[in-house]
């Protein structure tokens, strides 16, 4: 079940993406890579935004397309990282 916190995370990510890339809107399941909106420079910008905004570190083991391919995936990734840190 998607929690309110996860929805807030996705909205924060959506706001950043829409402010950074020239697209009209972004659905939760839109694939960022298939849409061709993530180049190498933007990939590290997005990573840095996630690290800075959610106070976590993206590590080598986190480098998986599945973690960043969509808003749903990135939201779940942030939740997973934060819950691990709270254990």
């Amino acid at each position, binding site marked *: 079940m998607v929690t309110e916190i996860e929805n807030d995370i996705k909205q924060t990510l959506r706001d950043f993406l829409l402010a950074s890339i020239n697209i009209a809107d972004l659905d939760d399941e839109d694939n960022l890579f298939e849409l061709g909106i993530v180049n190498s420079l933007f990939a*590290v910008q997005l990573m840095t935004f996630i690290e800075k905004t959610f106070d976590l570190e993206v590590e080598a083991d986190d*480098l998986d397309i599945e973690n960043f391919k969509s808003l749903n995936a990135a939201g779940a990734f942030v939740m997973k990282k934060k819950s691990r840190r709270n254990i």
Partner: protein
Amino acid sequence: MQHLLTEQQDARHTEFKVFVASNVEPFAEQWDREQAIPDSTLSLLATSGYFGCCIPPDLGGKGWDVVTFGLLNEALGKGSSALTVFLTVQTMVSMSLLKWGTPEQKRKWLPPLAKGEMIGAFALTEPDAGSDIQSLATELIAEGDHFILNGTKKWISCAQIAAVFLVFGKLKQHSVACLVPRDAPGVSVTPIHDLMGFRGAGLAEVRFNRVEVPADNLVGRPGFALSHVAPVGLQYGRLSTACSGLGLLRGCLEESIAYAARRKIGDRTMGEIGMIRSLIARMGTDWEAGSLLCHHACKAQDDNLPVAFEKTLMAKYFTSRAAVSAASNAVQIRGASGCHASSAVSRYYRDAKIMEIIEGTTQIHESMLGKMLIDQTRRLK
């Protein structure tokens, strides 16, 4: 820009400038002529802790902030662009490892890199893949519990003396990065001489012929070398080059002011001539603007802000072009003496042009920045 620095940053900048005045500037012309930096000078950089500027103390570094790293590059850049490249590349390799290396890789490689006991090289560019890094031909093939590396890298700074290479290539369709010691069987290094500028920077062509790479030497996960590993190194490379270019620009400005004050034409000094004042005014204004761009870029990197990448592109784009313009005008002010090796401005002129090429050409910067700014139209509304 001084007012933006902390007391400690300002004090370190002074220390760096003193170091450069004593240990770099008197020898820079000789290094340029001989196309090599002496081991003793690299050892001085090492014992001063400069190679480990940004590396945390628990891994052998100084743990200084990025603003201080920028100030170090600025100071060294005024003395010798070629020497600064060793700091640039060492930091590119180190920071890529710090971000994406495994704990074991960090423990093994970062202390000797931070202490300058080992020089690293960032082996990305190929004979047919410069700005277009997506078309790398260097290839890894899985074989048992390791990989076999084949390929050629070209224009690799510091490769003449590097003990380890951070090599970028492809594993099937995935980009990969791996650490390759220079003494691994199958590695051969051919020095590249007679460059226009950066002549002491130890460039070489590096060939990998069936080099065995242990799986433990892969950095980051396959598929992310060009999207995540290389950009971290290139970010520091651009910060370093931007600040080094700023130092070169300061060198042009100081040389030009000093020359204009003492050189007489008739009964007037050159500094009293309007056209000379114009050239110096442009240099001074570019230096001030470049200082602010470099400071903001370094500060954004310190704060781990997403805009750090954009600000760094702007800083490097601006200072490299401003350095070319300032060096050209500095030679113009000096006249014939500026065309001779005995004047630092003739070296500045050749070195400055290289800054528009390395870590992404001016045109690549324009392309990336233009796209970024257009994509951000919504932010402007």
